[in-house]
């Protein structure tokens, strides 16, 4: 294809947007609304995922060691835990450290336990984290069977429930997003098809005077691309601004600070990129699918 022709196709595509003003408006509106809904869900899903991840990361296994375990025994347990493939990290917490952490967690009331240093009732322990939070229960059970391990604590029951909830939220989010993306594609393909029906004559004449199929397709390609990308811009701006104010509002509201949302950047870039790509894809796909029927003259 000659460069001059590329210029012509782009010009034609842009001109056609103006010529079919109302149809263009309808198509872009359809893209805008669907991408806005899609964007809201995308933000929601990404944040739910983020919150779930932060909660999941806090899940750890506390391994209490037998009071009788001496230094070589402790080392042996450590290397055994390390050998479990799902384990990501292991940290030794001596009984002195354990007490210190315990007292710190009590804050002002720590004086109640003053003098316990001599008669420390806490055992030595390990803090174990797994690579995947979902493996926690299985790894905990495995550790429990080891020699010199007197007990294991990982919040049995609660953790399982949490994982059940987070995975449901994630799956529902994915289903919603995929469903909406398909709805948007068919909606847009249909709207563009209407604009092409109105231009059947033009295509017919182009074929009659000897235009090649790709010569006819290119302006529609440009047009679909422009409609998709334009349709993505408004939702991107709307979503970024509202998300900025949402973060602001949550910062000033103390009861909500426990939920940490994803920061504005790079989240808005990611969402913007996703919406532009999806918008461009459905625009191009919609117009090329629609023009196909009319090329068989």
């Amino acid at each position, binding site marked *: 294809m*000659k460069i*001059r*022709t590329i210029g*012509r196709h782009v010009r034609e595509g842009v001109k056609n947007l103006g*010529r079919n003003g109302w149809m263009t408006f309808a198509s872009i509106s359809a893209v805008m609304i669907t991408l806005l809904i899609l964007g809201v869900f995308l933000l929601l899903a990404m944040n739910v995922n983020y919150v779930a991840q932060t909660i999941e990361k806090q899940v750890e296994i506390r391994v209490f060691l037998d009071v009788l375990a001496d230094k070589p025994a402790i080392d042996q347990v450590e290397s055994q835990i390390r050998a479990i493939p799902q384990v990501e990290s292991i940290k030794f917490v001596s009984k002195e450290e354990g007490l210190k952490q315990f007292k710190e967690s009590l804050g002002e009331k720590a004086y109640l336990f003053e003098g316990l240093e001599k008669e420390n009732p806490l055992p030595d322990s390990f803090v174990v984290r797994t690579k995947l939070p979902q493996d926690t229960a299985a790894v905990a059970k495995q550790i429990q069977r080891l020699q010199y391990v007197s007990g294991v604590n990982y919040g049995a029951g609660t953790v399982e429930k949490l994982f059940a909830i987070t995975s449901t939220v994630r799956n529902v989010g994915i289903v919603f997003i995929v469903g909406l993306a398909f709805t948007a594609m068919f909606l847009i393909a249909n709207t563009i098809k209407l604009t092409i029906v109105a231009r059947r*004559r*033009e295509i*017919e*004449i*182009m*074929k*009659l*005077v*000897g*235009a*090649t*199929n790709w*010569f006819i397709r290119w302006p529609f390609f440009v047009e679909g691309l422009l409609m998709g990308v334009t349709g993505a811009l408004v939702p991107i701006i709307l979503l970024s601004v509202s998300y900025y104010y949402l973060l602001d509002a949550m910062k000033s509201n103390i009861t909500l600070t426990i939920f940490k949302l994803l920061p504005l950047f790079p989240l808005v870039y990611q969402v913007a990129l996703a919406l532009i790509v999806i918008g461009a894809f459905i625009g191009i796909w919609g117009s090329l699918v629609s023009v196909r029927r009319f090329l068989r*003259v």
Partner: protein
Amino acid sequence: MIEMFDVWKTYPNGTNALKGINIRIEKGEFVYVVGPSGAGKSTFIKLMYREEKPTKGQIFLGGFNVSRIKERQIPIVRRSIGVVFQDFKLLPTLTVYENVAFAMEVIEAPPKLIKPRVMDVLGLVKLKHKAKMLPSELSGGEQQRVALARALVNNPGIVIADEPTGNLDPETSWEIMKLFEEINQRGTTVVMATHNREIVNTMRKRVIAIEAGQIVRDEQRGEYGYED
């Protein structure tokens, strides 16, 4: 030159539009195709510019075997043919100039050549002064002249016309016919399907009559031969 050998056309609904057509049209000829409605005239015309494919038989047109070419080559064949229709088929949103230039842009003609050539053919159909008007601002005869200019702008060897005067009053029809005659005298082959008795009987040319899908008459300087 156009040649057809034992051409049959059966539509998917079972209609036998053409039944064994054999014809030879020389370069530079002027041919009327006449016959009652539904006799197969339009199919005969459509086969030439490959809007329809024959069910059986061979069609040769300007060095191409039109019945055998691939989908991809159709545009190449069409560039050697100009087509004119009863309903003009102009683009309503483009001006007269743009409508004609469109045919050149579409085949990627060099832009430098487009303007002089378009003004040239507009001069031929005497519409230079209305180049900037929209089709809706023109009379029927003027619109058909624009369509004719568009058909001619790429210098085709053959012009095919399907009822070009069907929508026009007698006086305007004659203007259009004079243009066709002029084009023919410059060496372009003209094949025209028509119902216009007066024109066929006055401007005597070769007449091919099609009835029920077969050629029933083929005479030089023939008559229309039907009562309307």
